[in-house]
């Protein structure tokens, strides 16, 4: 059976296989949306109850790192989109470079995040490990930081998975790219963009409250 090599028997054709895979990725992203959705819902409930505490907590985050990270991620998303755009078996080298770049930016994001964590640790802002915050808003601030650490940690985990995906794809693009890797690339890109979008939400929720002019 010659066609066995090209695609598994349950598919009728290569395009059939590819758009099936893409649908799979979309359904997976729907799952992920709900994963973060539950967390963000909890955030809003508490923000409503501890408005000032959350604003205060937010003022103790590092907006410079936060903003840099946002820029870093957006750039990496752009690189990934570009890599998908130019991908074909002959231009795969460029894609490989773009993907490597995006993965490096992802790593850079993680490093910055680590620096931010350690700063927060020094400021005694890690609930359950070392949290000292005097004053009346302590409860709200603590809840804020619990949310902050859980959300960013889960996000960072997603980043790590994404980085692995991108690196693998970059390696493939360098070695033996074929047309069938286009779908894989496309799906990985969807995932990466999704992780990026989640960050934009987290950015707004974490760094911005309490920083407006009022």
């Amino acid at each position, binding site marked *: 059976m010659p066609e066995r090599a090209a695609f598994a028997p349950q598919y009728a054709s290569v395009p059939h296989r590819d758009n099936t895979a893409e649908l799979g990725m979309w359904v997976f992203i729907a799952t992920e949306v709900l994963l973060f959705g539950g967390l963000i819902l909890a955030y809003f409930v508490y923000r409503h109850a501890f408005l*000032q505490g959350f604003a205060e907590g937010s003022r103790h985050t590092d907006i410079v790192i936060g903003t840099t990270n946002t820029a870093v991620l957006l750039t990496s998303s752009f690189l990934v989109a570009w890599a998908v755009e130019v991908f074909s078996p002959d231009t795969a080298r460029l894609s490989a470079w773009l993907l490597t770049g995006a993965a490096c930016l992802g790593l850079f994001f993680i490093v910055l995040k680590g620096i931010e964590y350690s700063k927060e640790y020094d400021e005694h802002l890690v609930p359950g490990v070392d949290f000292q915050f005097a004053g*009346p*808003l*302590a*409860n709200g601030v603590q809840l804020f930081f619990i949310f902050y650490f859980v959300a960013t940690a889960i996000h960072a985990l997603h980043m790590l998975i994404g980085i692995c995906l991108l690196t693998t794809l970059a390696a493939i693009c360098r070695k033996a790219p074929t047309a069938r890797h286009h779908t894989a690339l496309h799906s990985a890109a969807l995932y990466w963009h999704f992780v990026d979008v989640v960050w934009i939400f987290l950015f707004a929720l974490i760094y911005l409250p309490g920083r407006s002019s009022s």
Partner: protein
Amino acid sequence: MWRQWIPFWQPGLSPQSGDVDLLFAGLLIASAVVLGLLFFLLTLFCVRYRSGNQTDREHRVAKSWHWEVGWTAASLVGFLGLFVWGASVYFEMYKTPADELDVFVVAKQWMWKTQHPGGQAEINALHVPVKRPVRLVMASQDVIHSFFIPALRLKHDVVPGRYQDLEIEVDRPGQYHLFCAEYCGTDHSGMIGEIVAMEPADFSNWLAQQAPSSPLAAEGGALFRELGCSGCHGNGSKVRAPPLEGVYGRPVPLSDGSTVIADDKYIRDSILLPRSQIVASYEPLMPSFEGKVSEDQLLRLVMYIKSLAGRSS
């Protein structure tokens, strides 16, 4: 209240429990009708159309939609009726009780502590006079418990971190089960007690016989000094704090422009989470007493502040 006109209907032990029983009967009847119809049809079809039986199987119902609309609408109407009925009784049961505090209930693993305003304390028991609404103010020291009196068809969870009001009324003297209905750990099934309903005269006798511990408000007053509240709220203190005389039950203007009625919950929040509601024109100076006072002590403080209600500042 129309149930009093139904012949042979036993009144419940309290106004609401009677309503609940009636609702239960209604639900049973509705279910019996539906189930009866369903089982009748199932049996009929199974017998008539069993494979050995020669019978007319032609001329089947081809168009289904008017059947569908019919039974969808019928169920919907039935459901709506039950919903409205259930909801109206529910609101009757959980209506915010009149603001007269009668008994405090503190739940902890694995016992119920109840406390009458005069200071009489009980464990796993609660004495109440009959035919008089009693308001319970409930708090939990640790995990979630649930205050359940099956005879009264009444139950409410007791969630740590907040007060819960519940109004109970018993119409007939007797002893009734009190259960903890929310799973709370090892001895959950041992967290049971008794509600003893007595004629008012017996009840006053009983109250009088109890070990004369000092009234809650008095203990609260002592705490008020011990904990340093009087340092700020007392006369002649240097800190500018609002006087607490006459506060209870009155509207308090807050710094964000709104007003709240100073009820138990408000007082409790003021002590535990002072920053959540700041009295207008005061500085947010008051420290939180979260973790520094137990639920028992809180109750006493609230009682004390309440006892100041009559006095003017």
